[in-house]
């Protein structure tokens, strides 16, 4: 029955291909009338980061992590065959050729369909990230109990 089922997706990975898979399932599920929550944690936080390089209150180690893993949809690498960006560029041009939506198109589409974005506060602390480091599309900053509360009543729970 419509509106009764929910989907939770833990986005742990920060790679372009894995993020695309997560968003593909999220947007499809939302189109099927399911309530969808994407819980961004650890490297997955990079998907919803602004991709800026502000120092903020980061320690030298956190600052270096931020430099090496800048985040933002435009800076994500492929999990395989990235080849210093050559693979990524080829993949993006193939996706364009086959009229597949890019991550930059999928993200607003997910929001339009009502997908709920949660960023994990524990991973944020570890990486020295503040709420201001994230795009405005993030609805909530929360921890594992929030995820489990949603997942325990959900019918589909994925870890990507």
């Amino acid at each position, binding site marked *: *029955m*419509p509106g009764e*089922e929910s989907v939770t997706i833990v986005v742990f990975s920060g790679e372009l291909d894995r993020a695309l898979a997560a968003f*593909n*399932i999220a*947007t*499809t599920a939302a*189109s*099927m*009338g*399911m309530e969808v929550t994407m819980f961004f944690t650890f490297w997955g936080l990079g998907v919803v980061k602004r991709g800026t390089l502000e120092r903020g209150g980061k320690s030298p180690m956190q600052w270096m992590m931020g430099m090496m893993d800048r985040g933002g949809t435009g800076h994500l690498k492929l999990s395989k065959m990235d080849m210093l960006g050559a693979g990524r560029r080829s993949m993006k041009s193939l996706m364009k050729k*086959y*009229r*597949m*939506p890019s991550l930059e198109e*999928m993200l607003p*589409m997910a929001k339009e*369909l009502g997908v709920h974005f949660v960023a994990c506060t524990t991973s944020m602390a570890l990486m020295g990230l503040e709420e201001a480091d994230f795009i405005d599309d993030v609805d909530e900053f929360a921890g594992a109990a929030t995820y489990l509360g949603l997942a325990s009543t959900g019918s589909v729970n994925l870890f990507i």
Partner: protein
Amino acid sequence: MEADDTLDCVGLYCPMPMVKTSKKIKEMQPGQVLEVLADDRGIRSDMPAWAEKTGNEFLGAEDAGDGEIRVYVRKK
């Protein structure tokens, strides 16, 4: 089959045909029939799954030639 509205999804892959179908069906009236034209063969199994989940009625699929498929859904 007579359709009240048509959606062209030729050349589109996941998640686009389902996203577009769900948007289109929201604009339609209960009882109306939507025809979706696609060339991703996944639609033959995706559309019935979508319809069952959203409570709409899948009416069937047929070959439209050139590798294209026509599927019909009635809005509930």
